[in-house]
């Protein structure tokens, strides 16, 4: 499939918004869904909808097979050793909160340290703030270089023998930088800490091998990788998950229930209380099939090319500030920017009138915004269905925006 053909698989892109063909440049917020995913969810509800792990009846078995089949697809996708290490959650936020509420609560005490970075998304900050507040542990931030990248020297200087948890995003949703999580995991392990990787912005765009990274936990969301909303994944090493207590209790996750005591099912189900997100998991499985068919390497290459093209073209817009490294090789397919004297909300509104969807705001990264000395920024993010043509339209729209705000008033 070439990328023109790929675009045709996304029915939502074939429409006009405000009288212009839609140019969707907000995939870092959520990606669009190919027809294969939409049809997989529809097929589930039309043909096999049943609760899983319960019924003796045929549909129950089919639903269970499809749900557990999706788990195997996820396992392969991230190269986990076993499906016991793949837990379905509501998304990255729930996955990270599960590690904080279960692993951290049992393993972090006063005087310990939790290490994150200045570029983290709120979902990889606040759960750790809560752990620190409850346990008396210290939350530490790895500083950023001038171009927004991390230096391994700073990583080494921040992580100490008291560090219990290191949690870092693999790709920044604002700066676009790709962090060296494999090297950071090694430094964490040398100091006796575990390594958590927030893969929300990396899983959709690059091949992840949890065994190669040697991370202890990996969190990501389905909806940013062509899957539906409401489904995400927590990968964890089996030996850690086995020792962890569930954080939700009820149906589906139990083995024996006595009057005053109960025992839990084996992994991964002890972490999946209640009727799971069956259609969501099946949809995510279909998204993984789709991404594999295109090829993660090809997707990453395509996005690198778009990022390089965007950096070059956007730099020509008068008054443009681009955040993060200007070297396309150091970044993923998104560009965060501001235009002088035009607030990003106004940029987004003017672009929207041209049918161009970009994000404006603090991108759920307020500490990073303060580091950038910006209250808000605009962001254009690219995925496999975007093309150079979309970027040309964006740049055209940005030039118009600048002119509109300078000339008319």
């Amino acid at each position: 499939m070439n990328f023109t053909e790929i675009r045709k698989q996304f029915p939502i892109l074939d429409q006009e918004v405000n009288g212009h063909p839609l140019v969707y440049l907000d995939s870092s917020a959520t990606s669009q869904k190919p027809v294969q995913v939409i049809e997989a969810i529809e097929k589930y509800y039309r043909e096999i909808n049943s609760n899983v792990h319960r019924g003796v009846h045929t549909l129950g078995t089919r639903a269970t097979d499809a749900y557990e089949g999706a788990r195997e697809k996820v396992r392969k996708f991230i190269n986990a050793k076993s499906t016991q290490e793949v837990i379905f959650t509501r998304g990255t936020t729930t996955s990270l909160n599960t590690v904080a509420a279960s692993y951290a609560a049992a393993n972090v005490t006063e005087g310990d340290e939790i290490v994150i970075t200045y570029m983290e998304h709120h979902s990889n900050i606040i759960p750790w703030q809560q752990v620190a507040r409850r346990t008396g542990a210290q939350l530490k931030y790895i500083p950023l270089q001038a171009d927004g990248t991390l230096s391994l020297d700073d990583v080494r200087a921040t992580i100490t023998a008291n560090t219990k948890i290191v949690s870092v995003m693999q790709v920044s949703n604002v700066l676009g930088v790709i962090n060296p999580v494999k090297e950071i995991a090694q430094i964490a392990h040398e100091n006796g800490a575990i390594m958590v990787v927030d893969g929300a912005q990396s899983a959709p765009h690059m091949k992840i091998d949890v065994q190669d990274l040697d991370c202890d936990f990996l969190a990501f969301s389905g909806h940013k990788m062509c899957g539906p909303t409401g489904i995400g994944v927590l990968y964890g090493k089996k030996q850690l998950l086995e020792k962890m207590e569930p954080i939700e209790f009820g149906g589906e996750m139990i083995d024996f229930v006595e009057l005053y005591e109960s025992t839990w099912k084996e992994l991964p189900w002890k972490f999946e209380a209640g009727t799971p997100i069956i259609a969501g998991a099946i949809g995510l499985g279909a998204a993984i099939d789709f991404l594999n068919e295109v090829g993660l390497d090809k997707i990453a290459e395509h996005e690198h090319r778009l990022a390089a093209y965007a950096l070059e073209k956007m730099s020509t817009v008068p008054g443009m500030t681009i955040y993060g490294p200007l070297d396309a090789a150091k970044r993923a397919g998104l560009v965060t920017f501001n235009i002088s004297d035009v607030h990003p909300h106004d940029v987004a509104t003017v672009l929207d009138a041209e049918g161009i969807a970009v994000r404006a705001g603090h991108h759920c990264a307020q500490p990073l915004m303060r580091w950038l000395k910006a209250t808000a920024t605009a962001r254009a993010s690219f995925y496999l269905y975007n093309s150079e043509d979309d970027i040309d339209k964006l740049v055209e729209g940005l030039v118009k925006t600048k002119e509109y705000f300078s000339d008319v008033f």
Partner: protein
Amino acid sequence: MSSNLDALYRRVIMDHYKKPRNRGVLEDGSHTINMNNPTCGDRIQLTFKVENGVVEDAKFEGEGCSISMSSASMMTQAIKGKNVEDALKLSKIFSDMIQGKDFDDDIDLGDIEALQGVSKFPARIKCATLAWKAMEKGLKEDEQE
């Protein structure tokens, strides 16, 4: 650019954005209200001086888009010299107008009327209402006391 956008970015709005009225902090104010819009990062600090039930002076500081800052500028201009009851009444009219509801048009809204176009841009309504919510919060605290 589309005429649709011109309905939003009226000249008088841009004038208030580029040359905000009553920007700053009142050193001898009776009220200080901080408010932000957590979804986008806009923030405002409003200080005003109320004496004998009349808003004698008002100033604002903050960061935000053209709509939120021009609205703050217009709001401070409008409430200066008004008694608390009339200021709150104006806030109600503004709120109705910005949400595209029928509003009491007996009162001359002056510059504020230029913000009516925001009602056609649902994503921007919260930008326009931030300063007004801060004002209401400050004045309603008074009523409760």
